[in-house]
């Protein structure tokens, strides 16, 4: 390959391996994120909430009740 001398194959291989590993890592982490979000959405769709999220969700409803009573 022009400009990279007689050992161009080693240089190209080094950069290719780096690109494949880094891109593979990015794809794997993003696929893992998509999988975790899908599972979490599925669990929440079945009505499951962490206690802290459930408390947050019920708080505005309780706060609105007196106003509704007026």
């Amino acid at each position, binding site marked *: 390959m022009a400009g990279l001398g007689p050992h161009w194959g080693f240089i190209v291989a080094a950069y290719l391996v780096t690109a494949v590993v880094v891109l593979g*890592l990015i794809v794997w982490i993003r696929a893992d994120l998509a999988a*975790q979000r899908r599972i*979490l959405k599925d669990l*929440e769709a079945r009505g*499951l909430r962490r206690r*802290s999220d459930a408390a947050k969700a019920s708080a505005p409803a309780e706060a609105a009740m007196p106003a509704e009573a007026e």
Partner: protein
Amino acid sequence: MALIDYANPTRFLGLVEKLLPWLGALAALLIAVGLGLVFGIAPDDYQQGATVKIMFIHVPAAWLSMFGYSIMAASSLGTLIWRHPLADVSAKAAAPVGAAFTFVCLVTGSLWGKPMWGTWWEWDARLTSVLVLFIMYLGLIALWQTLEDPIKAGRAAAVLTLVGIVNIPIIKFSVDWWNTLHQPASVFRLGGPTIHPSMLWPLLVTALGFTVLFVTLHLMAMRNEILRRRIRTLRMLQASAVAG
């Protein structure tokens, strides 16, 4: 808001969502500029010729292999001393990213060694200690996969990580302590860098780009781990509701 407030996983996730696009763009920009300098400005070495271009990915990968393990060791202190869940998450998330960069370091080193040293591998102190680091990364990843309870796994991994930190100074100073085939330090050394600025600056820019990429990937992996633990909590709530 104080910095300590971001130790709350929910607030941390909010911060990460805001930071990630900027960090990703910065990493891409720095790596692109760095590679532009490597292939456009940095000269060939008078002895190695163009093969020296492997240095611009091998050296940052080597630094990040140790950086990743140092993050894990600092996080392990957070796990054992303060028992903070985010410290645990940080240590676990850094392992695959650190292992990947250590793998890149080993492979690019081998690809650089064959044309320059005449061998793919030599059992000298620097190469062997980096191989040990890679095996330690794999061992820690396996440990986290083996123990189902993340708290127990985190504590066991934290102890093992702190024991393994002894390997980091061995890697760094192996070229000074023993007679090795690997060259001595030429950037971070007493007396300043021995590398010419025309090669040093492209190396530093590329290394900074890969470091920002490492931080970005680490934060992304931490976000995944926090979500994984939320799923585990919900499943346990579901199981206890069914049992109760």
